[in-house]
């Protein structure tokens, strides 16, 4: 059920990308559909890599829309980010069956957390987009900041993940 909901949520940005792209709608749609199918397959067989791959393909379909577009920043990007995060949350929750049944109140709490996460994703994406549009510095400086941020983010993730997986 959650896998189907994830697929439905992921289909929204895919449809948007396929409809709004000025060029190669077939390619964009194909990539998007492949992403949705991969996500459903991943949730069905319990393959988490397929879920990430499905999200990535749907994101690539949106990237093609952005690249083929007429220039200018797509202000709907935060909504697309929210949809991708919501689809990911739903799909990953379907991957790991619960050990114990949850009371309806607890299920509502979990659903609330997922919804808040998706809203938070929209907010973060909106802030990032705002920062990029606001011309806070020279393009070169901004690019350097971006590179450092990307590398720092990956480095932090790798460090924290290594701490997490090291034996206790």
């Amino acid at each position, binding site marked *: 059920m959650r896998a189907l909901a994830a697929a439905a949520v992921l289909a929204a940005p895919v449809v948007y990308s396929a409809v709004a792209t000025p060029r190669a709608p077939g390619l964009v749609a194909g990539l998007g559909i492949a992403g949705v199918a991969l996500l459903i397959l991943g949730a069905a067989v319990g393959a*988490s*890599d397929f*879920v*990430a791959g499905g*999200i*990535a393909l749907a*994101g690539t379909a*949106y*990237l093609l829309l*952005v*690249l083929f577009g007429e220039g200018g*920043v*797509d202000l709907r*990007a*935060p909504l*697309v*980010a*929210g949809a*991708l*995060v919501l689809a*990911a*949350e739903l799909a*990953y*929750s379907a*991957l*790991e069956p*619960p*050990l*114990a*049944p*949850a*009371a309806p109140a*607890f299920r509502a*709490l*979990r659903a609330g*957390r997922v919804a808040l*996460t998706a809203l*938070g*994703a929209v907010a*973060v*994406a*909106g802030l*990032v*987009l705002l920062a*990029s*549009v606001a011309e806070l510095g020279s393009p070169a400086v901004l*690019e350097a900041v*971006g*590179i450092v*941020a*990307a590398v720092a*983010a*990956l480095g*932090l*993730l790798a460090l*924290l*993940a290594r701490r*997490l*997986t090291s034996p*206790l």
Partner: protein
Amino acid sequence: MNRRPTPKLGGYAGLAALGLFGALVAERPELVALAAPFAVLAALGLVLARPPQAAVELELEAERVFEGEELEPVLAVESRTGVADLELVLLLPHGLAAVDGGNAMTLRLGPGERRELPVKLTVDRWGGYLLGDLVLRARDPLGLVHWEARLDRRRPLKAYPRPARVDELLQPAQTQVFSGNYVSRERGEGIEFADLRPFAPGDRVRRVNWRASARRGELWVNEYHPERNADVVVFLDTFAEAAGERESTLDLSVRAASAFVGHYLRHKDRVGFVAFGGRLNWLQPRTGVAQLYRIVDALVDAEIVLNYAWSDVDVIPRHTLPPRSLVVALSPLLDDRAVSALLDLRGRGFDLALVEVSPVPFVEPGHGERAELAHRLWLLQRDALRARFERAGVAVGTWDADTSLVGALEEVRSFRRSAGRAHA
């Protein structure tokens, strides 16, 4: 608790990396907007992921229950740091069942919060259990990290068999020397009139039968049958059993044995116990409530242990089978060793009564002519075996789950009344 990252953490980190590097290559801020939430979630999840430090204890209200009863152990859960999402499963051994799946639960604990969670269980079968094997899984608020643990909070629980319903039990043919409830064949002090005899020096005056004395012209006294107790040994065949989905011949035997033991001990008899099978277990005959608990505890431990070695009654300690005791045997008569031992006991002069716990209802006849023929031959073999016991002077009553034990005991009583016994 063992911590491990969920697949979601790796997926989010990968998507964030892919998006950020894609944004650098394509020089599009939209990709940064797509990747940033994944990166922020992954980093937040790792930062917020703290070990839950959950402690769980199991409280059992009673360590002894009866088969078929409900019990409600309580799981006391607390956490110093709080847990956003804690799943808890109390693993149940075979024989215990949860009411409405209540042995698995999900909860949220605040920092320092303690919750007491009752778990409703039913005891489906008698036996000894260890209850308290727990599985825990805790998640951080974003579901990126799991902590799992298996806790051993096992406490012993004994489920006593539900005694089978009996109104009247078998009367032993011979009694012992202590006071009891059976009218003995001997002569002495009692209530039941036995005989008259001439007065002898030392006899009490109140025993003089004045009417007989007047008729005979000399003093004659009444003699009575004293009330005595008896020695009873409950003999349980644990070599083999026939089992269905819900119960087996051993289950029925243990319930019947529990009824016999309780009844005879209430009548002030000395009761002993022998579990004769792959593993021998015995208790010498004694009286009292303590003996009841000893025998019931021994019954709870009774089980079928596969063993191919030949055993006979010589392995049973002599004090466990006192002379002149009534041996009440419960057996499905599936194993030759049990059959041989019972006939040997009869040959040694024991007063033996056999309740055959029939395996027939547990055996489905096969399909086809040969299978049906084999099944009929098997039934005829069992009839021949019963006849062999009866020829040896052993009363046999057949009992299964669909019939009453009272009927089987009446069968035995009827045989004992009509056949009479030959003393060894």
